[in-house]
């Protein structure tokens, strides 16, 4: 797989080679050491270290009062986290999979997102809801969901989706220190797909800032999370085989979007493709496409392409390779934008 373009955090002092999930654990541990008001809670996060081992070792390091195994109840986990935040703590609730987040949906959209506005700024709800999301790991039904649009649609929430280990730690740190509730979506397909130099100690990757993973002048590709990898693979193929140079923008934060970076890249290339694994209709691709048209219509050379999951439930694992955007589908979509 291509990791050539992943050099967003050149080593500046001490680094260690970590996978994305290890970088998240490191980020949690670093912040918990720095700030005693942080507590981690959720089903299996303690003794078991999380079903993906994202909280591995935290129970031993910080004890059962700060790394709390809760009863199995998503609404209860997020609802109590809201109360913990109102009490002055900084809770980091874990949803075991994004597909199990729906019982907590009411707590997130009716309350977490509105506490600041409802109290006219008097109260806030500082917390980070972590959830592994996306497909490609042969998981059972409801374990491969990619429904970031639900949360992006809700004013008051911020939504983050890293695609590299160094970003994962830096964005998580920024999310924990952010005064608003953040939905932190972890692309589980690449939890352990590659390692990268991750700075030790604390550092922030600012929220609301996209990253240019690959520069190019012919077409812009907008993506995030696990889809950044196949987008880079497709871009390399098109460069090698057809001399088409694709600029790949990893959005990193989905709410708020980095409109400036999105628009500036489009002004340069005049052509765009958006890649996401969620269903196409009313997915985030529709929003990005509209932003481009609102802000840069006169630069547009071709219809904007969306390469996405289908408007069908994610299939069981035998067929998920067909459902998720592959390098070939992404290539074809980019070509449709270039050869219009």
């Amino acid at each position, binding site marked *: 797989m291509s990791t050539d373009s992943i050099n967003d955090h050149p080593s500046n002092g001490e680094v260690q080679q970590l996978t994305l999930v290890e970088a998240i654990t490191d980020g949690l541990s670093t912040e918990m050491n720095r700030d005693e008001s942080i507590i981690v809670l959720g089903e299996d996060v303690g003794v078991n270290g999380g079903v993906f081992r994202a909280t591995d070792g935290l129970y031993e390091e910080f004890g059962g009062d700060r790394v709390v195994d809760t*009863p*199995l109840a998503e*609404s209860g986990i997020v609802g109590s986290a809201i109360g913990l935040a109102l009490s002055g703590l900084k809770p980091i609730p874990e949803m075991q999979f994004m597909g199990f987040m729906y*019982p907590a949906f009411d707590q997130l959209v009716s309350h977490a997102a509105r506490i600041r506005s409802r109290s006219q700024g008097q109260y806030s709800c500082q917390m980070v809801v972590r959830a592994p999301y996306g497909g490609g790991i042969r998981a059972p039904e*409801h374990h491969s969901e990619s429904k970031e649009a639900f949360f992006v649609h809700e004013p008051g929430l911020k939504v983050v989706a890293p695609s590299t280990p160094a970003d994962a730690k830096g964005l998580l740190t920024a999310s924990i220190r952010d005064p608003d509730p953040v939905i932190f979506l972890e692309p589980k397909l690449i939890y352990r797909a590659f390692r990268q130099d991750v700075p030790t100690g604390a550092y922030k990757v600012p929220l609301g800032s996209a990253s240019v993973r690959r520069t190019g002048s012919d077409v812009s590709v907008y993506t995030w999370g696990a889809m950044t990898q*196949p987008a880079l693979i497709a871009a390399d193929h098109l460069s090698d085989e057809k001399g088409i140079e694709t600029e790949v923008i990893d959005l990193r934060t989905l709410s708020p979007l980095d409109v400036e970076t999105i628009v500036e890249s489009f002004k340069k290339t005049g052509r765009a493709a958006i890649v996401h694994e969620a269903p196409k209709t009313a997915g985030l691709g529709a929003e990005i496409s509209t932003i481009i048209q609102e802000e840069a219509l006169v630069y547009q050379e071709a219809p904007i392409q969306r390469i996405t999951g289908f408007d069908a439930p994610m299939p069981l*694992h*035998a067929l998920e390779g067909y459902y*998720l955007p*592959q390098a070939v589908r992404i290539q074809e979509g980019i070509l449709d934008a270039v050869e219009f």
Partner: protein
Amino acid sequence: MSTQDETDPSIAEIQPDSNIESEFDQVFRILDDDGHLLPGVDPGLSGDKRLAMYEDIKLARHFDQRAISLQRQGRIATYAPMTGQEGSQVATSYALDEQDWLFPTYREHAAKYVHGVDLPSLLTALLGYREGYAVPEGVNVMPEYIPIATQVPHAMGMAWGYTLQGKDDRAVLCHLGDGATSEGDFHEGLNFAGVFDVPSVFVCNNNQWAISVPRERQTASETIAQKAQSYGIEGIRVDGLDPLAVYVVTREAIRKAKNPVDGERRPTLIESVQYRYGAHTTSDDPSVYRDEADADKWRKRDPLKRLENHLYQTGLLDSEREAEIQARIEEQVATAIETAEAVEAAPEQIFEHVYQETPDRLQAQMDELNELRKKYGEGAFSGVLE
């Protein structure tokens, strides 16, 4: 399998064994740990039925071992083992009449099989094809539920619906785990069931663990059965490792759901006290969070062994017959694996059954995928990171 030709013994006649350890306090049982019938109890099933139940439990255990092995070989994906729990699963389905409905979770492979789902279907879903969720015509089994406790209000609603329509001949049996009792849906479903007095039976398979979180971290109540009191329905604890006791208790709950006597409430919450011998799923490692010596203690009450001992003691089983049964179940499971593995990938299936009529936009998406399959071959769709 499920049709009843037995008398329904009264639960009131069965006394809890006063000598059992604390986790089995106030738990109904019929067989002692060695499989002897306790004095003065009626297992409520003919010899032939008890033998058939034994064969189904034995098949379930063999299926479980084969499924774990197939997962280890990479032939099926994540699997939720049921060893230790299959006695209760089989027994609850034996207590159903054919027209009764079954709402399973992702672990009730044996309960589904006994109520009419074929073995290859169970494996087809595990091989990653949604066709495996298809239920044969006339078999009243819902596809498995993976989100926790969400099936509880559904089961209650179906039972309510049948009552509203005057269809009083059927009950609904809903499985759930001890973790599910923490979810809001559990409370809402049981509360409605009590309020509307519907013919529903909720079987909580209390296997002591919700992945790594022990039963005592799910609820501070002494038992799960006692939660029934909050909803104005009956709660009962049964030894989930005693298939005959589970049968008797469930059968009585089904009877009551359909034909309550004056003043009797229809719904029942059964706490089937059991133990998950193995991992939550093949993706889980229980050695991280629990003591295996604890599991060994529960294994001494193994449901298969206890029923087997009972059948030997009563002359219903001998070694020759046991060998015949063993050969038969091995062949059944082997044939099922062969049948399931013959299923071929049909990517068009992604687009089927999303709506009754496929919308144009979905048809167009399928056409687009098929064009790309033709152009690049199936290998291009084997993995995202390639």
